[in-house]
């Protein structure tokens, strides 16, 4: 590859709402710049994992270097930086954005701007990125580019007179995007002569190479053999390999200011490579670390337990492997009276939790019980001590507690005006504090609330979706801890509290949630040999009670010669179902019971 000068480099990302066509557009750009021949193109090449493909969400950021021969006859180097597209990955998105000079804003030409897009565009503007608006899915019959252009101008306040209309699916208009990248996005600034200063915006674990980090070099240069240090961890390494993706990995000798590429430096664990950290030369460090670094801390916690106790070691190995690749994920051993030995796991948010859970079950073939997710609560004791608890069962005795604090989040919901009432009602029910309601256009509203974080654990997303026929989109950021009247709701099965079922709830909702929870559990827990009493209690006060009647018979009435295979299969199914249940005392409780609290509103 011939050397392309500094001023012909373009570093950019694509900002879009889920399903508005980000991955398709990325595929098209890679294809049209010859990064991969069409034969090699799998759809959505940037979404590596099956899981991502299935959910249509990009989880790990990747970046590709492409060479584009522009109409002016010159070759340009494009670095397309992929960004995660979900609210749980707010911080990661911000780091990816700061590796770019420009962003392609993809908006569905019929659906218009959504909250998540907005949050990311605002973030991009904060990072002084040049925005290139693109209206996608222009080939669909209900596309209305003029209306959407106007909307983008009103809501975001950027000029859309030069917005491009494309269909990423058919490739229509994508060539214009390529030209616009050349002419409208700026070249990187920075100097090769300064001391090395590079931003880590993604990292992952490779079995053979150890941690692989993706960097954007801001100043200076990186060479193979160079000693580098990571400024926030203070650790020093030697660069073993440098390279970039096309999307196939290509090895090179140097990365210079303005370039994007990967670094392999014998780093054992991804946890040492914190996203947002600054890479510098160990001998000749830059003056200061790049701004915006934040320690990523898990916000949502849940217990993960093997259904079969002998799977504990396998689960541990699987969690270790996952953590290698996911620095936002944490776990530590925990013991539950009801569930035995397992792990308390920390996640960025609910989606992150679901992804981990699914990967454990799918890739590692484990049968698991996940307990209800919870946030971190601050417990102020009467003796002045403050505890942070990530598990309701760790709550100290009521008498020793002075007060409790729960985390609050800043929530932006973007919704067509006809559903505003529903959204407000939902937020009010969830103890929200209204901050702003902004009619960005006559029919598009931005609802801004401060909500207790735990409230969005209880069926909030599904509820929001159904109340707005799927038209609402949501973005949130964690704010602070605030004192609330919280109580621990215990669930008793046959008189014994089951620690893994307890939840922390607001006192005003405790009775209602208790009732809903036991009634849900009664539906989920199958009838057993004995009657099963289900109770919800606050302290010693029972607030709700339901009974699962004893099973009186479980026998097939007829079984003759022609029925043998069929009846055997029926019994096999029954046995399989039993295997997936956890014995708590003498009661068998199915997996989904431990997440029942999520299903109540």
């Amino acid at each position, binding site marked *: 590859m011939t050397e392309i000068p500094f001023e012909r480099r373009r570093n950019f990302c694509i900002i879009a709402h889920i399903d508005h066509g980000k991955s398709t557009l990325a595929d098209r750009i890679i294809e049209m710049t010859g990064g991969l021949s069409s034969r090699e193109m799998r759809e959505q090449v940037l979404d590596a994992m099956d899981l991502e493909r299935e959910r249509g969400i990009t989880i790990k950021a990747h970046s590709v270097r492409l060479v584009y021969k522009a109409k002016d006859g010159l070759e340009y180097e494009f670095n397309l930086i992929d960004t995660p597209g979900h609210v749980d990955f707010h911080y990661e998105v911000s780091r990816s954005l700061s590796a770019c000079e420009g962003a392609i804003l993809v908006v569905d030409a019929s659906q218009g701007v959504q909250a998540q897009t907005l949050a990311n565009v605002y973030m991009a503007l904060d990072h002084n990125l040049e925005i290139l608006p693109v209206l996608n899915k222009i080939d669909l019959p209900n596309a209305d580019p003029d209306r959407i252009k106007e909307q983008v101008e009103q809501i975001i306040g950027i000029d859309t007179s030069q917005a491009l209309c494309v269909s990423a699916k058919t490739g229509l208009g994508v060539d214009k995007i390529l030209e616009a990248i050349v002419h409208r996005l700026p070249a990187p600034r920075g100097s090769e002569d300064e001391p090395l200063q590079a931003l880590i915006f993604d990292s992952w674990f490779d079995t053979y190479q150890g941690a692989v980090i993706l960097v954007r070099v801001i100043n200076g240069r990186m060479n193979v053999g160079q000693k580098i240090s990571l400024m926030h961890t203070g650790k020093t390494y030697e660069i073993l390999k440098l390279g970039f993706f096309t999307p196939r990995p290509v090895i090179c000798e140097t990365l210079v200011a303005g370039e994007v590429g990967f670094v392999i430096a014998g780093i054992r664990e991804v946890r040492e490579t914190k996203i947002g950290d600054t890479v510098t030369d160990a001998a000749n460090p830059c003056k200061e670390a790049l701004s915006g670094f934040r320690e990523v801390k898990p916000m949502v916690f849940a217990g993960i337990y093997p259904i079969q106790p002998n799977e504990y070691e396998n689960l541990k190995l699987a969690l270790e492997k996952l953590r290698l690749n996911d620095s936002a994920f944490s776990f530590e051993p925990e013991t539950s009276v009801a569930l035995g030995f397992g792990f308390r796991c920390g996640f960025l948010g609910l989606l992150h939790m679901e992804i981990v859970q699914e990967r454990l079950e799918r890739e590692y073939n484990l049968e698991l019980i996940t307990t209800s997710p919870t946030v971190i609560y601050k417990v102020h004791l009467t003796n002045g001590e403050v505890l942070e608890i990530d598990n309701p069962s760790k709550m100290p005795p009521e008498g020793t507690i002075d007060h409790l604090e729960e985390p609050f989040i800043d929530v932006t919901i973007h919704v067509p005006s006809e559903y505003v009432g529903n959204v407000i009602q939902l937020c009010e029910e969830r103890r929200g504090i209204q901050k702003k309601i902004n009619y960005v256009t006559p029919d598009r509203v931005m609802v801004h609330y401060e909500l207790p974080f735990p409230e969005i654990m209880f069926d909030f997303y599904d509820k929001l979706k159904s109340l707005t026929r799927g038209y609402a989109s949501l973005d949130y950021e964690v704010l602070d801890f605030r004192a609330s009247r919280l109580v621990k709701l215990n669930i008793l099965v046959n008189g014994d509290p089951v620690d893994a079922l307890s939840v922390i709830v607001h006192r005003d909702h405790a009775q209602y949630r208790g009732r809903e929870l036991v009634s849900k559990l009664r539906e989920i827990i199958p009838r057993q040999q004995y009657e099963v009493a289900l109770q919800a209690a606050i302290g010693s006060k029972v607030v709700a009670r339901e009974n699962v009647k004893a099973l009186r018979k479980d026998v097939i*009435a007829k079984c003759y*010669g022609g029925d043998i295979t069929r009846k*055997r299969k029926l019994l096999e199914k029954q046995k399989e179902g039993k295997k997936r249940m956890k014995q708590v005392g003498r009661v068998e409780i199915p997996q989904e019971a431990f997440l029942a609290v999520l299903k109540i509103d």
Partner: protein
Amino acid sequence: MKYPCALYIHFPYCLYKCHYCDFNSYALKEREIPFGSYQKALLAEWRKRLPHFDPFPSIGSVFLGGGTPSLMPPNDVADLLGEIRRSVFFTDDVEVTLEANPKTISAKKLENFRQAGINRLSVGVQSLNDAYLAAFGRIHSADDAREALKLVRDAAPWRGAAPWRGAGFKSWNADLMFGFPGQTLKQWESDLNEILDFGPPHLSCYSFTVEEGTIYRRQIQSGKALPPDSDLQAEMFEMTGNLLEKRGYRRYEISNFAHPGHECRHNLNYWNYGEFVGLGAGAVSFLYEGTEGSKDFGYRTTNYKEPGRYMDALKDSPIWFDREEIPRETALAEFFMMGLRLTGGISEEIYRRLFFLDAKRPNEPLFTVFRKMGWVGEEGIYLTPKGRLFANQIMSAFLP
């Protein structure tokens, strides 16, 4: 194969599909039923099967089930049984049962069936309450059933415990169901008492079950019908046993009762995991693997279900069935699933003969658990009355 084999013959046609029925049956108007060509197909299948056996085992029982096999002209049955009887050996005490719908029989027809070789009748009474009969789409009324019961009683001269003397039918059965949604314990008890007045030597009492793919299942799903009350059914199940045992019957299987000596030989063969050959649309055959050292215990074939396809395949194709291999461990589980249905439980002799077991038995620890729970008897391998109600849980524990 020195043990007698059972022969099942399936007649897949009926006049109306009962709402709870999940058997392989097709409702047609009587004049549209292809009696002749179906009977020919049965014989064609028989002829195709014969050469595969060398020699064909002796037949200990024949069962004509359906559908509604009592719709068949007795002459057809005579020809069918006649040809079979000429080609294989029937044991002296062979039991030949015909399932009869109350609406389809007369004294004359019964006598013709008897002359055709039928020596046992199974009458599908189901209920003596018109409301339930109508609700489930039975083609007969309670009075039709009473009429039929009288005919059968008169055609089978068995009285009380006196042995069969060779005149009339050897034995007979009434099929009954209990635990219909809405049915009370009292109603069921009165059905049962009335049936007993006819003195049946054998009774099948089935807990009403909603099977997959039945009309009734669809009615429940669309909210047009109620599911049965399983608790009340459990009560009825126990009451039935108590009442019948007082009247001299023995519950010899989960749903079957008989006066001593009148147990259904054909069905006992199923529960003892014996071999059987099934003729007709959708009929199942089960045969042990002959070859020494084979990893499979046996195989099961299921004939094509749809009568048209079954008949066509017999004409020009060598294959008219699906085949399932039964590995040894599956066979052992099935052996328990079937054998534990019997009140007497697993026969040690058969257990040893089929699975070559010496003193060490693989499932002993499981039995110990169930014995502790009081579900399996202390000596031998059989379910206690309590265990019988939870038979599925015990049986599924033996699955591989």
